[in-house]
């Protein structure tokens, strides 16, 4: 049956019963509707509610993932209540983030931060990844608090602070507990990212302080590829701070 003859209602009926391997032709009706609804609030809102019903219902994982992909494009704060509970589910968490990460509404960031508070292990790293991609400054205190905990989570938190790169993120990184291995490396990388951001924003003094600290510390590290790369980054940053015509 040509997808042109399938109504949107029938498309969503097909979606509710959809699974991997099923005939995807009926979904084309929904795809077209998502494209066409741009700038039309009532159509977008209707579609959003329908996707929310799929996500919050008993549809298959494949169907829910399809709905989350569409909510990534058109979702609003209205979808947060149906997506947020999935963040704690190891199966559904990523696709819930697939939508929430791209919903600009503050409620989406709130949901990710709240979920981070309760999450552990890889799920926590997932929240951290999405907060980093959102450059969520409000999560800096929570991320800073993770720097002394589980090493994988601490490394992810450091990476996120480097992506957010606010002065507060730089302060949190500077206060990180002593660490070794991947966590120490992640903190250094993040501090370099913060310094580069500060330099780009014109705060040479703050950037210089970080580069100096890292250059001094890197002098004691072994002459490995990694050690040399960090020295290059720190010393190049210092040079850039000295010359107003140079940026990283």
């Amino acid at each position, binding site marked *: 049956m040509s997808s042109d003859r399938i109504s949107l209602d029938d498309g969503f009926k097909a979606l509710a019963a959809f699974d991997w391997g099923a005939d995807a032709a009926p979904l084309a009706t929904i795809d077209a509707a998502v*494209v066409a609804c741009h700038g039309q609030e009532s159509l977008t809102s209707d579609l959003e509610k329908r996707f929310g019903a799929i996500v919050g219902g008993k549809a298959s994982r494949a169907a829910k993932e399809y709905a989350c992909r569409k909510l990534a*494009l058109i979702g609003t704060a209205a979808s947060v209540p149906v997506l947020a509970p999935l963040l704690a589910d190891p199966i559904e968490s990523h696709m819930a*983030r697939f939508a929430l990460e791209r919903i600009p509404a503050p409620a989406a960031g709130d949901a990710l931060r709240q979920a981070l508070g309760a999450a552990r292990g890889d799920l926590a790293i997932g929240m951290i990844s999405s907060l980093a991609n959102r450059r969520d400054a409000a999560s800096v205190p929570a991320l800073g608090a993770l720097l002394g905990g589980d090493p994988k989570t601490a490394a992810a938190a450091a990476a996120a602070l480097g992506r957010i790169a606010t002065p507060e993120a730089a302060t949190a990184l500077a206060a990180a507990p002593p660490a070794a291995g991947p966590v120490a490396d992640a903190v250094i990388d993040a501090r370099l990212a913060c310094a580069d951001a500060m330099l780009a924003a014109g705060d040479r003094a703050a950037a210089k302080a970080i580069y100096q600290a890292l250059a001094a510390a890197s002098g004691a590290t072994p002459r490995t590829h990694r050690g040399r790369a960090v020295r290059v980054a720190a010393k190049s940053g210092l040079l850039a701070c000295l010359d107003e015509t140079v940026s990283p």
Partner: protein
Amino acid sequence: MTHDFAPSRRRFLATSAATATAAVAAPYVITSKALGDATTPPASDRIVMGGIGLGNMGSGDQRAFLADPRVQYVAVCDVREKWRAEARDRVDEKHGAGSCATYVDFRELLGRDDIDAVHIATPDHWHALMTIAACRAGKDIYLQKPETLTLREGPLMIQAARRYGRVVSGGSQRVLEDYRRIVDPCWAGELGRITSIDIEPGPSSMACYLPAVATPPDIDWELWLGPAPWEPYNPGRCDGNYGAGGGSWRSYIDYSGGSLTDWGAHNFGGTIFAAGLLDLQPVKAVWHPASSDGKAAAYATLVYPNGVDVHCNRPKTLRPADPAATVTHERGITIRGDGNAVPPRPVPAYRGGVSIYGDFIECVKTRQRPFRDLEGAVNTMTAPHMLGLVRRLERSVEWDRAAQRFVNDEEANRLLDRARREPWIL
């Protein structure tokens, strides 16, 4: 910012077996190969390399690097057992049995301090993560095209490369090879100022709904997927090479931009280089809907800040007659100029070699920027990514290069990137 350090002399580490860590075998016998000869540097002066992703393109890249006497190849990494074994065997054949360590997890390979450089030829969804990790590990990188999967990745990769002083070469070898017939006349000034271009990019990638099949034991499916959404194993999802309509992973949106970015990296690469647009990014992408009578299909125009319009899949019925100052390429590329004389420029050559591989190795040694430097590669890929976006939205967008965002367009900005599956974080 240039970073000016030369690699220190490398101590050649012989291994007695293919192990996951480099260990000095005892006793260490200096072979004639290690000492080098008139055509081969001594082992201590060779660039120590490893490969990540040794499938169709990766195995070809590996062969090219193995053939370079300046390279000592020591490690391979692939999530498929068969490709790991074949890649290892190629190294053993070149350097002797037991020369090559094998890995499933790229982080272990990058953690080896004896490795100077890596080549990466995984599916596209891994490119940014691996490149940034390799930069942080102090490695130089040869990265297959398309270098990026999303618009957000490119600037982050450039930041990492410049911060840590890395040589990062993209893998579009065709720019100076297949596309010379358009590069040469443009750079010679024969067309004058370039005014407009027509190009025929291939289809975008699509969603994948293939059914679940039992995962075979010889592929690490979790690592193959990596940051992409979890979906069940199916050979149609991850196998194949160049199928655009469902024939390979390149067909699917979670792993690739489709033929649009795959062949697009070459077609846009050659075109953008020829037309002198390598330092630029489009300022807008204009969507032209299909004509109401159905006679003309939809197409898009990428508008560059220097006034050059790049029409993508424009119906021939809508094209003006070509002026005298026009060059064409059989891959559907037409470049037009105003015909007024402009000074010729010499076409850059590969450094220290006749191939893009040799160019990379030379740049690793000299710390110069390679022919397909990362900034140029990212600028190039911005074009097909933007085209893919307007195809999806079926409307025009405007791009703010400084902010790396679309102007006043929340919906388009949602397509800049995508959430990565835990535990992967960019």
